[in-house]
């Protein structure tokens, strides 16, 4: 109590110096919180956009699909009846918002003038629209069950073929029996997703039309979209339990195992964040150390008096450590409050950011509220302050009493 009282009064005694140290710490912590919140908001935004632009939260396949479907696609597809049971199982979990079936294959898309290889996805138009809600139709309209021959082309693919909405194309692929087959399709819309590479080759069509082309009833995948990404682990556990009980013969893969791009971005930004933390903490070390060195110098005679009266060296060290720690924690807490206030204000301003690398769309600036960064920065600053104060505090305690008393 006495330590804290004395430390507090000493902090107040030199208002300008304390204020300077406080502002250094405050701005450092605010910077960490804003940058950390910005990075986290991007993770969340990117994550949801990745999930909704193609992966869904969870993709379910027939057992063995992942290892074998490239060599023998049809054998590892889910037959009609299995897909129906999977859908029923998923939809009985309250976190599952909806499911959608997909049939995937490559085909040749073209007209008399041009042709391009396309990665084709046959989908349930009604539900796929929801999974692709981060996918923007930039021209024409979305797929529609009423227009089974309509298709969507990625922007790059449409440009390569030089086609526009309403144009006719033919789609050529080999059926499951190994026979070449062709269907006519109409360009119904053109889309942009978050990844330009994908838009350069991707094409969407209605599932019945795709099944007709391949002469099959099967699908590759049943995709599930959840009400919240955080529920994924619980849903996976539930699916694992019940599919085993029902002997369903399936395997699954979560979105983050598919989204390698997302993982790379996270790693990169984690690196930036760490670096910025280090820079800021170095500044804090110097700010606190500088303040405490001046304080110790100035209080030399006081230290001599305390020691003469019988205060132990440890008591002197504790006094200065308490002071440095209080200054730091106080500055850090103010920094957190300032960080929260600025987060709120910047979010309210809705500033538009340029498109991130690999993307074709800009996005509004968002900063997330991340409590673990708040707590972490206060903790880190406290530790750093202790460390930065230790050297001057030990110097104070080691001074010769007589010399300290002579100091004016």
């Amino acid at each position, binding site marked *: 109590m*006495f330590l804290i009282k*004395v430390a507090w*009064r*000493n902090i107040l*005694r030199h208002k300008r110096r304390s204020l300077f140290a406080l502002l250094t710490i405050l701005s450092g912590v605010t910077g960490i919180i804003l940058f950390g919140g910005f990075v986290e908001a991007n993770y969340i935004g990117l994550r949801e956009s990745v999930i909704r632009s193609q992966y869904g939260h969870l993709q379910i396949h027939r057992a063995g699909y992942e290892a074998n479907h490239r060599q023998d696609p049809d054998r590892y597809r889910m037959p009609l009846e299995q897909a129906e049971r999977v859908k029923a199982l998923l939809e009985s979990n309250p976190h599952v918002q909806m499911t959608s079936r997909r049939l995937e294959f490559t085909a040749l898309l073209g007209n008399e003038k041009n042709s391009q290889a396309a990665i084709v996805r046959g989908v349930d138009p009604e539900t796929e629209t929801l999974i692709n809600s981060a996918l923007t139709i930039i021209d024409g309209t979305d797929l529609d069950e009423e227009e089974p021959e309509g298709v969507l082309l990625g922007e790059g693919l449409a440009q390569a073929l030089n086609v526009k909405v309403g144009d006719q194309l033919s789609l050529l692929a080999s059926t499951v029996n190994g026979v070449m087959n062709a269907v006519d399709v109409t360009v119904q819309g053109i889309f942009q997703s978050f990844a330009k590479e994908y838009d350069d080759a991707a094409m969407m069509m209605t599932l019945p039309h795709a099944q007709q082309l391949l002469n099959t009833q099967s699908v590759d995948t049943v995709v599930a979209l959840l009400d919240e990404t955080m529920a994924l682990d619980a849903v996976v556990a539930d699916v694992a339990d019940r599919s085993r009980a029902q002997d369903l013969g399936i395997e699954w893969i979560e979105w983050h195992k598919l989204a390698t791009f997302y993982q790379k971005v996270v790693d990169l930004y984690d690196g930036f964040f760490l670096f910025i933390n280090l820079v800021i903490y170095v500044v804090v070390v110097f700010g606190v150390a500088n303040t405490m060195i001046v304080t110790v110098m100035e209080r030399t*005679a*006081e230290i*001599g*008096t*305390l*020691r*003469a*009266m*019988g*205060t*132990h*060296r440890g008591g002197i060290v504790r006094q200065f450590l308490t002071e440095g720690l209080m200054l730091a924690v106080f500055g850090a807490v103010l920094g957190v409050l300032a960080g929260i206030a600025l987060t709120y204000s910047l979010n309210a301003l809705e500033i538009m950011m340029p498109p991130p690398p690999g993307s074709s769309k800009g996005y509004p600036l968002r900063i997330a509220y991340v409590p673990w960064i708040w707590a972490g920065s206060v903790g880190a600053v406290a530790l750093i302050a202790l460390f930065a104060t230790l050297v001057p505090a030990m110097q104070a305690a080691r001074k*010769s*009493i*007589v010399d300290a*008393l002579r100091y*004016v």
Partner: protein
Amino acid sequence: MGFIQINELHKTYWLGESQVHALRGVSLAVNEGERLFLGGPSGSGKSTLLHIIGCLDRFDQGRIVVAGRDVASADDRALADFRARYIGFVFQNFNLLPVLTVFENVEYPLLLNGEKSAKKRRSRVEGMLEAVGLLGHAKHYPNELSGGQRQRVAIARALVHHPRLLIADEPTANLDSTTGEAIIQLMLDLSREQGSTVIICTHNRELLENAERCILLRDGKIENDATAGTQGRTAACF
């Protein structure tokens, strides 16, 4: 054996190459309850001697026993505890802690001595403040007091834990002569009540002449050690 027993004490300060032989064989015995004034020209070693007696500094040669303790062999921690328990200091520059109130300054030695009861501390501190006539200033900070008042607080602080030895190095040097006299008188009166031994270092000739016992230092040696007769005169000092 005396309360303080000093034999052939030597102390040398080193300033790079050159050395200052500040004490050159000082021997001295002081009885408990004695009140001793230390005089001598500037640089004669008065402060040096007081620092060593007060266990604030080490020495090179000789022997010193304070309150029955051979302080040369004690480590820093033990010396700190010893000072906190047995010695009170009054300094030339008052040396009050600026962030503590008058009350808190006087309370500090009691905290150092581990007095847990706030009630006991309060009554001790208030008793001392009353004795130095500053009870009404208990809540003030040192910078709100005059020099004389600050030195009174310092006296209260030096005596609040009933030390057996009170050491004062030129306690009146920063005060006018009337205030200075009152301060010396206060120290003598209060320490007499407590039965403490007192050593005061001063340049004030009048004080030295009227001292019960007066020691003059010159060039690091005791030039004169005069004890007063029943009249309390030490004219022999000069």
